């Protein structure tokens, strides 16, 4: 099916004018065997699957035989069983602190290389410096850059992820249209040049992304995802990672720091879906949450005790509301917007 990207080359792919493929069916990701190590798909495990069609283009691709070029651009393409996500670490080591997760297709500039790790500076929405495994990046950047910079794109808005076979295309991944894509038939390009057809309900044109209300409705799909520092995907989530990811899907780049978040965007006093409320506890620690239903006072948060979960303002009455912010693509003064990137 989808993956088979590692060292894929052109073997087994269809060239010329591919027939319109059947749509990739998104389905629940509830696992069948919750415990035990996740199986890693073999390199060519999905080539024979007829439900997904992909055409590989000689664009950038992962190739561990080629050294990364410092100063080059690259696209994030982690292992498929991680949904193409790459962890960004503070040091060139898995044991170092994870700063955040870079989503499939994120653009990075390679600044250095050391023992199989690349020092990168990522662009929006992450806008961060750190280390990723070089194997999680594409090589050969000119065409990549051209396509990723110029083509119209879509953002994946299926939470917690769009599941294609054993692969999870992450919520928030921004991917360019592939050639021959029709308006109601979004065929998107993957960083190694294959394409994947998305159903309309799983994507939104980028920019501007989803309206705030639709974004938080979609984000309810993250409920139950476990909490871990530096998480911002279906694998794990931290409090600010959740908020930034959902805002990103509606075209807003929010700060990653709680204090900065509490003063970004616009001050608001009436509740709307997509507003960020920042609670403060007795110790003045800040807890940002995302309003999902103004009527019930329901909000979504990533909490260490429950993972991503809904709660109500009533239940959290013991916290004070330190800030109530609204982020809108047009007119945002403090947060920047994706369209401005």
């Amino acid at each position, binding site marked *: 099916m989808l993956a088979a990207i590692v060292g894929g080359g052109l073997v087994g792919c269809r060239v010329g004018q591919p027939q319109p493929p059947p749509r990739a069916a998104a389905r629940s990701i509830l*696992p*069948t*065997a919750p*415990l*035990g*190590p*996740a199986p890693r798909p073999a390199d060519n495990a999905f080539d024979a699957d007829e439900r997904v069609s992909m055409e590989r283009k000689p664009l950038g691709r992962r190739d561990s035989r080629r050294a990364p070029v410092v100063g080059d651009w690259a696209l994030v393409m982690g292992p498929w069983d*991680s949904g193409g996500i790459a962890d960004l670490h503070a040091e060139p080591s898995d044991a170092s*602190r*994870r700063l955040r997760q870079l989503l499939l297709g994120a653009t990075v500039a390679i600044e250095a290389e050391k023992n199989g790790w690349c020092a990168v500076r990522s662009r929006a929405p992450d806008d961060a410096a750190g280390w990723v495994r070089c194997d999680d990046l594409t090589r050969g950047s000119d065409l990549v850059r051209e396509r990723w910079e110029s083509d119209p794109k879509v953002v994946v808005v299926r939470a*917690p*992820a769009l599941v294609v076979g054993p692969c999870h295309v992450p919520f928030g991944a921004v991917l360019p249209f592939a050639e021959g894509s029709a308006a109601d038939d979004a065929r998107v390009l993957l960083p190694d040049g294959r394409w994947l057809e998305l159903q309309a309900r799983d994507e939104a044109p980028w920019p501007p992304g989803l309206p705030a209300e639709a974004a938080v409705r979609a984000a*309810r799909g993250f*409920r*139950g*995802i*476990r*909490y*871990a*520092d530096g998480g911002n995907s279906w*694998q*794990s989530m931290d*409090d600010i990672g959740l908020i930034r990811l959902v805002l990103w899907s509606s075209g807003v780049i929010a700060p990653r720091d709680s*204090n*900065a978040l*509490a*003063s970004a965007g616009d*001050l608001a*006093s009436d509740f709307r879906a997509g507003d960020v409320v*920042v609670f*403060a506890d*007795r*110790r*003045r*620690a*800040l807890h940002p949450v995302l309003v999902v*239903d103004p009527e*019930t*006072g*329901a909000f979504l948060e990533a*909490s*260490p*005790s*429950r*993972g991503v*979960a*809904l*709660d*109500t*303002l*009533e*239940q*959290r*009455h*013991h916290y*004070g*509301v*330190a*800030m*109530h912010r609204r982020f809108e693509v047009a007119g945002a003064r403090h947060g920047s917007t994706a369209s401005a990137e």
Partner: protein
Amino acid sequence: MRRLIAATIVAGLAATACNHATEEVPTEHGLPAQNVAPTLEEARRLADDGDLSAAASKLEEIVSAHATDRDVDEAELLLGRIRLQQRRHVDAVAALKSAASGSVAPEYAKMLFVRAVVDGNLAQFQEEALGIARDLPAQLDPETKPLLAEELSTHVVELLLARGRLAEGAEAGRSHLRAWPTGKRSDSVRWMTADALDRLGDQAGAFELYDSIWHDTPSSPWAARANERLEALASRGIGRPRALTADARVAFASSLQRAGLHESAVRECNLALADAPAGEAAESALVALARSLRDLRRNRECAAAADRLRTMSPSSRHLPDAALAAVGALRRTKATGEIQEWARVVQARFPRDERTAQILYDVATYCMSEVSRAEGEQRLEALVASAPAGPLADDALWKLAWARRNAGDTAGAVSRLSAILTEHPKSGFRKAALYWYGRFIAESDRAKAVESWQSLLREAPNDYYGHHAAEELLNLGVRDSTMGNGMAFPPIDSFDDPSRHPDWPHYPTAVHLARLGLDDFAADELRAIPQAAAEPSMQFVLARLLARSGRPAEARKILRAQFEDFLTAGSRDPSLVPPEFWHACYPFNHRTTIVRTLADSRLAGTQLDEYLVASLIRMESGFEPDAVSPVGAIGLMQLMPATAGRIASDRGLAPPTREDLFDPDVNIHYGVDELGRLVHRFGGDWFPAICAYNAGEEAVSGWWEKARPDVKQDEFIENIPYSDTRLYIKQILGDYRNYQWIYGQSSD
């Protein structure tokens, strides 16, 4: 409520509008400034909430501020009581000496003074305390004297012996045992007296008392030591071992087993078998032997004892008991063939015996994990079909549901959960089954899922599963679900009017003592009122007094016995169930210490808050500072001395003593430190850290890091291999939400 929230927010916004700079956000939630002199009422309120450190500092301010004499007397009495509860004995004695010469309940100040001197082993005050302990009974009110006399008599013995006055001590001990032969302190007095007689050279007298401790009260803390002394004296030809029949020896072995003294139980069983190699007594002895050997993990010997019984008497009525022990031991050695053989034997000979059902259940779960899932499921199915309705059948259905779920057969899981709900309405798995039934069918049948979760909210709104059901309903936008049983709590006695029950003895004294903060004395007075035992409102007052005086385990026992319905299904509506009830159920003693310790720890600035620490303490020790676990974990947060030693060593400090760890402040300090280390170990995620606090970090890191990353947290919890840890984490997460709503509003 919406209006209230809006008002809070507006206030928050107003506060922040002036301070737009990010570093100056939230300001309104710090502790309020205290510029006025504290009052006794404030100090009492803090003490009532269990905030002993804050109460004590306010009382010290009152004493040093030269308030009215009466206020100072009251403050010193309460301060002495609090310092004693904090195990700060020298400080307690200082306050109580003053209070004892004051005008407010001086007899209780004296009583507490004696306690402080004895508990703190304060040599310089022992003679003074001895005089008080001897004279005080004559000064007590005739109604109160019987409540305190036994304790004072014990203190006389303790103080005499501490001063080295052995003969007087032994005589006082004997006199005490004549007056209270089965009193609650007679075990310790018997030991002290025997020890004194031994040291005085009256070994025959000592032998008699040691023998009584060993044979009559083997579960007392002194039993093992008494037995050592007995054996030493017997080896010198002093005293004669108690002659026991084989039957009596087996009964004694069973008492030893219950006290955890398995080596001794094995010895007694072997002696019984030597006396009676066959017959009923021998069969009972073999069962007792097999059980003790199983608990000693001498697995092959345990299996051999059970085999011996099967050979000796194949139709013995004791055979299923022996089989149960043997299967338990054989599971550890993975002796699959022998385990299956035992299942076959008991099923053939005792097909309808409850013990057989238990064995079949154990064998099925063994097969599930060690042989094959198919055989395990087959055995569980057979058990469900044949076993009487009860906990085993419920458990089997629950395990089958998850086996089906994990095999990808959610419909199979739903049918098992449905069977629990319809055929076993009293099942202990009902809450879990209601929740997961809803989860598994929500996509296909929304209405049924909603119905299931609404039932759960009515039956157990304050449980882990209740909280999850509320979230699921919130997600579906379902409102107006009834939470709880809707019952009104019985009226609570405000306990402020001594004349409310003129016919009840002890009542006025109890009210007076409670008003002075002498809660434990008030509780004892209240317990002595015969009419109060049948009055729920008085039982609730008693539970509160016990909880406040540092005896939460006794309080919890009363709450469970009298108010079970409210514990599981009580409404949160304060017009139905008063906040005092929830405060008693969910104690929050030492709150200030917890908050300050967190603020000074590496957990500062994280989301791990005082409510989580409170839930953990409630689970670990029930807020009992003196709690000791069978493996030696100590105090509120159940710290192992080695763990505390490691933390101290990492910081270049001397390791805390065992006594130190009973001090709530010290215990919380080390416990929070350990929790912080675990949270750090798991990358800032405190869910696995809490699991690791119970199951150890190695086990948890194995489960956590190998789990598929897309497994939702609630499903992960149901698949934790250790059942203790599964229950532990669910209890803590459920309690955490309860602490949040119960104490949130009063978070000053």
